[in-house]
């Protein structure tokens, strides 16, 4: 990943986090605010329900009291036979607009029941207990009806005539009609769960319009209130509900009131805010990215230029200049870079110049050394010839003949020396052709067979028969290999083992020449391929330079591994096939 990309990512992440955090805080704050409003609205509704409930309680008490005071019941109380009054409760209920009216004896035996006429004679102990307790308020009652068990708000009054008395119980059913009579603000609804059996029953839950279709969804909230016996809140769909337990006379949980407030508006607003936040965030991110793109371009351009310039320097083009005009750290860095390249160029020029001088000196030294050796015999021979001519004329011819032969020999040596220098300076480019390395190895080893035997050197050939041909100049390779072999022989004057290997590694052809000679020091290894450098007494120092030149011209690489006393191994790597072309 480029520096610019990293910078861009860093910018983008920063913008994203900032925008996201901002949207989150706004959304949460808004939601919190709306939920507080919602809570206040629910509280107001609950208070309204309580007032309505109390009003209904008072209404039940009032109507029951009205029935008790009607005078009809006193006559019934006096009568010992209540059979004629079987229909009385129904008549009273119709007159008072009550859902439930029951007349009972003091022990609770039903005289007449509006809600279940056929239940006469059976006992309603709740009515008896309520009537005996003298409680004047209406309370929740579990009411059994022919087809169902329901919940009712019931008040009981005692009617006495002399020593005789009866109870009258009147009430409303707490059903959907009761809920429908309570006015609710828009978006709110009330449900009532009649807790009349141990297990949850969907039919026991009713709203103002009848049993809700999604009654099962209320089960967890209802179960929680049943187990905790206290108020609880929960969400069902898009509504939040406050569930309040309603207890009967004996503190038994008879009903659970659920007041629901639609969160649709809140959710819609929250969704809108979230969408707005996302849109703003997205726009912010896009804008941030664009700005980051622009900013990173501005920031990274000089860095990029610096990197390119550094690359140029690494490639050898030291005369590289970075054009940065800023005055910041990058500008300082560019100025330092320019100064560095300028210094490097100057140092290189100085180095080249000094190396050139050194090379000329070395060349001169080598030439002097090489030429001095043949010149000395020439001088001796010529002086011998002159002395013979002057002092021993009779021997002059013989001396002349021997001297001229020596002169010719030394002159030939001089010529060889000169040719070598000439050859090195005029190394021709390789003429490539499909070349079998193994064949070249065998040719060279054949040439040095006699020398190997003379020096008691054992040749070992470890050639890879499957080695493919390489595109190379066979004559130059022959010469390079010969140089290496001769060097190896020079390194083993007292005999040893000369190993020549061919093989393949990573798509390259490998040629290794190992000797068991005295080996080289580390310093010698480092300078080994420098022209005119030699470790031998009579070498020109051009042999390995020529080898390196040949290998280099073939796009190959030569290396040496050696330690003093452990021999040396020269390793040539040549690329196979056409890829070896340079």
């Amino acid at each position, binding site marked *: 990943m480029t520096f610019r990309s990293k910078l861009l990512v860093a910018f983008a992440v920063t913008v994203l986090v900032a925008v996201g955090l901002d949207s989150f805080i706004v959304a949460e704050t808004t939601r919190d605010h709306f939920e507080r409003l919602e809570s206040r609205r629910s509280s107001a509704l609950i208070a309204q329900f309580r007032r309505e409930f109390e009003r209904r309680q008072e209404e039940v008490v009032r109507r029951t009291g009205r029935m008790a005071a009607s005078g009809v019941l006193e006559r019934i109380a006096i009568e010992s036979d209540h059979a*004629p009054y*079987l229909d009385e409760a129904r008549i009273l209920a119709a007159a008072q607009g009550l859902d439930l009216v029951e007349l009972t004896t003091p022990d609770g035996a039903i005289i007449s029941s509006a809600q279940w006429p*056929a239940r006469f004679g059976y006992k309603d102990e709740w009515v008896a207990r309520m009537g005996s307790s003298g409680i004047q308020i209406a309370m929740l009652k579990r009411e059994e009806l022919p087809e169902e068990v329901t919940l009712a708000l019931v008040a009981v009054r005692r009617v006495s005539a002399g020593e005789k008395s009866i109870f009258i119980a009147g009430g409303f059913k707490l059903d959907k009609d009761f809920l429908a009579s309570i006015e609710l603000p828009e978006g709110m609804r009330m449900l009532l769960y009649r807790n009349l059996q141990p297990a949850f029953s969907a039919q026991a839950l009713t709203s103002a319009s009848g049993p809700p279709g999604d009654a099962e969804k209320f089960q967890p909230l209802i179960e929680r209130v049943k187990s905790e016996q206290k108020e609880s809140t929960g969400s069902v769909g898009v509504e939040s509900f406050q569930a309040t337990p309603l207890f009967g006379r004996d503190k038994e949980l008879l009903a659970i009131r659920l007041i629901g407030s639609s969160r649709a508006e809140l959710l819609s607003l929250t969704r809108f805010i979230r969408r707005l936040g996302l849109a703003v965030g997205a726009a912010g991110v896009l804008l941030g990215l664009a700005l980051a793109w622009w900013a990173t371009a501005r920031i990274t351009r000089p860095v990029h230029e610096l990197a390119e310039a550094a690359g140029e320097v690494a490639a050898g083009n030291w005369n590289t200049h970075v054009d940065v005009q800023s005055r910041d750290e990058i500008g300082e860095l560019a100025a330092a870079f320019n100064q560095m390249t300028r210094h490097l160029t100057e140092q290189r020029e100085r180095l080249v110049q000094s190396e050139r001088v050194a090379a000329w000196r070395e060349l001169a030294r080598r030439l002097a050394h090489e030429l001095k050796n043949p010149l000395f015999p020439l001088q001796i021979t010529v002086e011998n010839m002159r002395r013979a001519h002057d002092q021993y004329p009779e021997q002059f011819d013989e001396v002349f003949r021997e001297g001229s032969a020596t002169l010719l020999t030394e002159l030939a040596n001089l010529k060889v020396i000169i040719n070598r220098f000439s050859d090195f300076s005029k190394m021709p480019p390789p003429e490539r052709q499909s070349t079998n390395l193994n064949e070249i190895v065998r040719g060279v080893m054949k040439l040095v067979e006699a020398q190997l035997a003379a020096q008691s050197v054992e040749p070992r050939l470890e050639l890879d028969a499957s080695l493919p041909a390489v595109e190379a100049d066979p004559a130059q390779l022959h010469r390079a290999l010969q140089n290496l072999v001769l060097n190896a022989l020079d390194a083993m004057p007292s005999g040893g083992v000369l190993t020549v290997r061919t093989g393949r590694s990573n798509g390259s052809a490998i040629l290794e020449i190992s000797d068991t000679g005295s080996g080289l020091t580390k310093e010698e290894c480092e300078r080994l391929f420098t022209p005119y450098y030699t470790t031998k007494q009579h070498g020109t120092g051009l042999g390995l330079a020529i080898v390196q030149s040949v290998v280099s011209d073939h796009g190959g690489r030569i290396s040496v591994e050696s330690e003093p006393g452990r021999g040396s191994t020269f390793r040539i790597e040549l690329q196979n096939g056409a890829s070896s072309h340079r």
Partner: protein
Amino acid sequence: MRHTAWLLFAIVSLLPAATRPHYGGTLRMKVRFASLEPGAENNLTPLVFDRLVTFSDSAQPQPALAIAWRHDADFKRWEFQLRPGVKFHDGAPLTAAAVAAEFGVVAAVVQGDTLVLRSQQPAPKLLHILASSSIFKRSADGSIVGTGPFRITSGGPGHRIVLAANEDYWGGRPYLDAVEIETGRNLRDQALDFDLNKADIVELGFTEARRATQNGKRVWTSPPVSLLALKFEASSDERVREAVALSIDRATIHNVLLQKQGSPAAGILPQWLSGYAFLFSGARDLERARQLAHGAAPVTLAYDPADATERLIAERIAVNAREAGLVVRPAAGGSPVSTARLVRNRINWPDLGQALGSMAPGTTASSPEAAYAAERALLQDYQVVPLFHLPAIYGLGARVRGWGPSRWGGWKLEGVWLAADAP
């Protein structure tokens, strides 16, 4: 003695006209249902159609259109001498030929004014059959006419039947000029009509009868002449049937819902008729009912929705059964899936065997012992559970006089007259 007779005559002559029978007036009746079909067994058909013979309250055959009869030793040949001078409502004379024409299945031969009926098998109970067979003829316009004390003047579709007095009735012209009968009125509405003096005679329910009595109204109650019973489907579980039967608290229902009218029933025929009804037990055994009800399927109990008392009784049976652990669901009308239903059968016959046969078709009994055995066999599998023997109750308006129905509530309106100055 002569002086005394004159004195009595003078006293009678001084009595107000309202206490003496007199002709005229229209009697207004309200009933739940009535039919003018000659074959229908109700109180209306005897007003229009006569029988050859009738039976007295003491189960003795009485002359009607036939004034005399005799049969051979093996009851295969019967001779009936018809009452002379009787005319149908269209003026046609009653003849043996006209009567014989209506007895399609019985070989009838006319010998002057004598009708001879022959059968292949002995027919000792032929008089009982004839006592329930209306004599009628089809007039030229296709309508059915009888010889009874009243003739139909309006009886088409709807809920209103108007009968006019038969001026030529062989038993003498009825006192009433006409009878207006409104049908299809439930008991509560009839009671209301009665309270508002919109009707002279109405049927009353048990509660309404009590209220009417408390309000000083005239109420006529017959002996228990109908049986209210539970009838189970034959495919129902016998254990469930027995459980329901044992769970019912008849005494409380009798005291409260029936206002002590009629009597709890354990047998089919009432005690006053059979004399052995007390041998059947209708006692409640809740413990045994609970044992039998264990694992029982719900029972659907159908009742007549037009009868509020029946509905209450059905609901009370459900409450009783609930105590035994049974689920009984009352259902208005004849639900096709009902397991049981409340049925009410009218006892029309003073004769024990005939009465039992009418209650349980196919059952015959020639003696009280045989009737008891037959009844016991009928009740042993609880397919029929007798509940109550119920009376017929009528509310009588203040101006109605001469109301003398048969023992089982059969109307005899030819003797009824209306007091002119009734309040």
